[in-house]
């Protein structure tokens, strides 16, 4: 079964970069520029396996998205990876308190992203 991801980031360049890396290891993705639209998709479309979420976005932002997802048991299998330029330990701790599963600091290399996905239990046949 192909893994599916949702990428939520208000930077189009970041969304494209992440999507390209995911595609290289066989993960299909859909992209959103804000957390609210991504939440709407969760309630209407098939539930993805993985969400990669920026923190600082207009509206409820990445933390709001994570809290909303974690408040609804139907999304309990959804892996949440925060991908953000916030590098302070307090910000990392806040993301875990909200309910994210792992945290990747921007800027990041492809290898770093893939290593985080491995930590979350995603596997693929060959490294791209």
């Amino acid at each position: 079964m192909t893994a599916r991801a949702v990428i939520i980031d208000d930077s189009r360049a970041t969304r494209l970069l992440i999507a390209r890396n995911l595609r290289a290891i066989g993960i299909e993705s859909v992209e959103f520029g804000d957390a609210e639209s991504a939440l709407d998709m969760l309630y209407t479309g098939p539930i993805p396996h993985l969400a990669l979420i920026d923190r600082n976005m207009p509206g409820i932002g990445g933390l709001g998205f994570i809290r909303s997802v974690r408040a609804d048991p139907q999304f309990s299998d959804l892996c949440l990876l925060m991908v953000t330029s916030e590098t302070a330990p307090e910000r990392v701790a806040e993301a875990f308190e909200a309910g994210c599963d792992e945290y990747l600091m921007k800027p990041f290399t492809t290898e770093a992203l893939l290593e985080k996905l491995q930590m979350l239990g995603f596997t693929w046949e060959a490294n791209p």
Partner: protein
Amino acid sequence: MIAPIRTGTLRQWDPTLPPEDQIRDLLRTATGVVLGEGRESMILARLGPLMRHLGMNGLDELVSTLRKPESAGLVEEVLDLLTTHETSFFRDPPVFSWLRTYAIPTLLRGIDRKTPLRVWSAACSTGQEAWSVAMSVLEDHPGQAIEVVGSDISPPTVRAAADGRFSTLAANRGLPAKALLRWFERDGAAHYLVRPELRRTCRFDVHNLISQTRIDGPYDLVLLRNVLIYFSEADRTRALQNVAHVMRPGGILVLGTAEGLMPIPGDQLRAERMDNIGFRVRI
């Protein structure tokens, strides 16, 4: 600090050889690392920025400077650039999972918590492997004493490892963010620094695997990963002899994933293979 590089040996070189072969000879003489044919582009890629920085026009100019007796510092820098390999925390997760669930508990079975588990991370580069083993033991076996020694042939790399200071780019690599929070503190906007409770478990020194025998054994666990593949067969034998010399009977040696399949002659290491990941030294 041990000086593993003798610039005097450079004078024996044949200056009529192409400069890339002279660089190759320098690397082999000083470190044992054999750089295969066709790696000229790798030499240029790694040394190019240094040559530009020094205003040099090419490898010829670099090599003639390296031959001068006063160039020991530059030789060190060149060897550092050629031998520093990519590394990350908990590199090769299946190996770390094996270490945590099987190897380390096996080694700890025979000792009490106050007796330190002694680990050698050989060719440790910038230290991520050493810090990763220490984190694993501290997390899985609270209160267990542990001593980790990381060694590398390159003095600048050893200094970096001992600093325990990682850019956010490096801290992203393989390190679960919860471990980052637990074992590191922020140092400026773009770095993380090892916390004292982790720092006190590791020390680092300069060591040449081929020409030097350690005198600070015995070790319970030795990690010698992705190093032997760069050595000639003779140097591989010598390195393994040096490692075997400091391993405790019953201790465990872990080689790189590809290296575990290489034949390990019994006169270097009397050991049993374990799951194609490690070798257990016979008691």
